């Protein structure tokens, strides 16, 4: 290995030099961070000529294949045991949707909590997306479908629910996630010039169960609690049928404050207890004890029948100002029990290096570059004009 470890610089154009090695070999080198003078000798990185190009080509081909195969692989992997949902995120615009988020902040499954929510999801493919991206897409789609209009007020409640346990840590992490998501949504709305209020709330898993039992999204249910606490005459039926802003707007002009309060409130279970009878009345049904245990039972209680008293107010999802679909299905729409407890499977298991990089937010191009750079000889030491003093 005594060959070609140094070379005499014979030509330099920018950062590219041509050197002659003692072995009589001419080589062209790219030296990003040094500028040796002509006539200087420099140390050369080892030649990997033979393995070099095939290796890079091979690596590139493999990477390309991986990239091409990734969507396929995902599809193939999907039926396998899922990454367990770590959070549920409900988004209420008027459409209400719930996204199950796994430990890598990716959407494991998405379902509409009312008919508008299902319609909204129908035009989106959120599975496997980062939750932050999913929120962006959702918001954009809501704007596109006319749920938000420029220069008209609107609201969005993002509720983050830890899938299990409600310890400080989980709630704090959920709060961070919620903040991140509201920022994303606000960005999109701002771009669309919609002066909407976006707030996030972290709620306990029990709240989600109760909400589900009463046919509301966790976000709307939480808001219901807050509203009742503030002494507003809201019912679950109102919230089932109509969008947030409409219901709230009708009741009290100051609903933004309500949203903010919701965000600061960390123990809704406590509130639930305090409200007791008021809440039951608002839910317009049998003792709440039934509901929080059995999701299936709850379906009975939450049907349109329980809400007859409020029916005359608005026949459908009329919060939406845009031109649109016919009278929407009141109530919160179908919720197949199977889907609920089976957050559709997804690529769990071990993450590939590329996957890991993708999780970290690298783009494919950056990843390719990274792989490519590993194959490339590292740069030389900086060289320059002859230093007479030698130091």
């Amino acid at each position, binding site marked *: 290995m005594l060959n070609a470890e140094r070379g005499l610089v014979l030509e330099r154009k920018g950062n590219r030099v041509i050197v*002659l090695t003692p072995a009589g*070999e001419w080589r062209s080198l790219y030296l990003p961070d040094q500028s040796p*003078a002509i006539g200087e000798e420099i*140390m050369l*990185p*080892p030649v990997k000529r033979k393995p070099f190009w095939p290796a890079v080509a091979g690596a590139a081909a493999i990477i390309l294949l991986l990239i091409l195969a990734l969507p396929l692989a995902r599809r193939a992997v999907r039926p396998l045991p899922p990454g367990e949902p770590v959070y549920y995120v409900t988004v209420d615009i008027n459409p209400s949707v719930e996204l199950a988020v796994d430990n890598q902040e990716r959407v494991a499954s998405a379902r509409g909590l009312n008919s508008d929510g299902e319609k909204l999801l129908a035009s989106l493919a959120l599975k496997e997306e980062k939750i932050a991206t999913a929120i962006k897409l959702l918001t954009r789609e809501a704007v596109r479908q006319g749920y938000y209009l420029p220069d008209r007020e609107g609201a969005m409640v993002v509720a983050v629910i830890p899938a299990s346990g409600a310890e400080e840590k989980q709630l704090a992490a959920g709060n961070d996630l919620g903040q991140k998501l509201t920022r994303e949504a606000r960005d999109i709305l701002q771009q669309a010039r919609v002066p909407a209020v976006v707030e996030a709330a972290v709620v306990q898993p029990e709240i989600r169960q109760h909400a589900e039992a009463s046919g509301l999204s966790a976000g709307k249910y939480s808001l219901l609690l807050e509203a009742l606490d503030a002494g507003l005459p809201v019912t679950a039926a109102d919230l089932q049928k109509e969008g947030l802003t409409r219901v709230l707007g009708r009741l009290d002009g100051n609903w933004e404050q309500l949203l903010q309060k919701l965000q600061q409130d960390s123990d809704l279970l406590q509130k639930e207890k305090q409200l007791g009878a008021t809440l039951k009345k608002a839910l317009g049904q049998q003792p709440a004890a039934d509901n929080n245990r059995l999701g299936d039972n709850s379906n009975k209680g939450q049907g349109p029948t329980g809400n007859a008293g409020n029916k005359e107010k608005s026949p459908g999802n009329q919060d939406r100002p845009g031109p649109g679909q016919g009278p929407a299905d009141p109530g919160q729409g179908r919720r197949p029990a199977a889907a609920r407890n089976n957050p559709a499977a997804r690529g769990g298991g071990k993450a590939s290096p590329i996957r890991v990089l993708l999780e970290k937010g690298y783009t494919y191009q950056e990843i390719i570059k990274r792989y490519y750079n590993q194959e490339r*000889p590292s740069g030389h*030491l900086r060289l320059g004009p002859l230093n*007479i003093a*030698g130091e």
Partner: protein
Amino acid sequence: MPPEADPNQLLLQAKEGDPGAREELIHRFTPFILAVTSRATGRFIHLGEDDEASIGLMAFNEAIDSFRPGRGSSFLTLAETIIRRRLVDYFRREGRHRRVLSLQVLEQETAAAVDPLGGEEINLVHEMADRRREIERYREELAGFGITLADLVKGSPQHQDARDRALAAARVVAANPLLSQYLRERKALPLKALEKSVAISRKTLERHRKYIIAAAVMLIGDYEYLASYIGQNKRGGQDA
């Protein structure tokens, strides 16, 4: 130490106190040290026989410590400077520098031979300037053959064996006045004659035409430094 380790990397490791990297670096650059030492003393230096070789090794070792990356100078240039300086120190101590300094060095010194003892670094500056001029001349002459250095990068024989054969062909051309004249006047290789005198197929000769011309030009012309540069790698650690 993996054989394919980048010497630049070795240098950094050695600086950080990795004795293995330092050992490997010195081992790999023994030919360089011997070449510099020989050039400075003006005679062929044998490792293990001549004190100068040890001086050179020690100076190289010193250079590893003195080198500061990013300070503008190539490590090898710094090493060459330090080797020369230590050799001068040594000559001075031995009181026999006059005897061992090369003619070339003496010639350079006569121009401004105010302080022949302290002039080693200045010599190196002169020599670098000479080298640069030599390289410039060489490139111009190659241009006369329609050859650029980039052509040579592209047309360089890939394997050491093939390169050695091509270099051998170039030596044949350089050694034979008739062939060199043919090359100079026709700006082309005397393929027919060459084919007979070397064991290389015409096809290979043609393929490596530019490389052979470039090497022959280097050998024929007055390119002392360049011509001596090629083949330095042959001087391994044992140095028969």
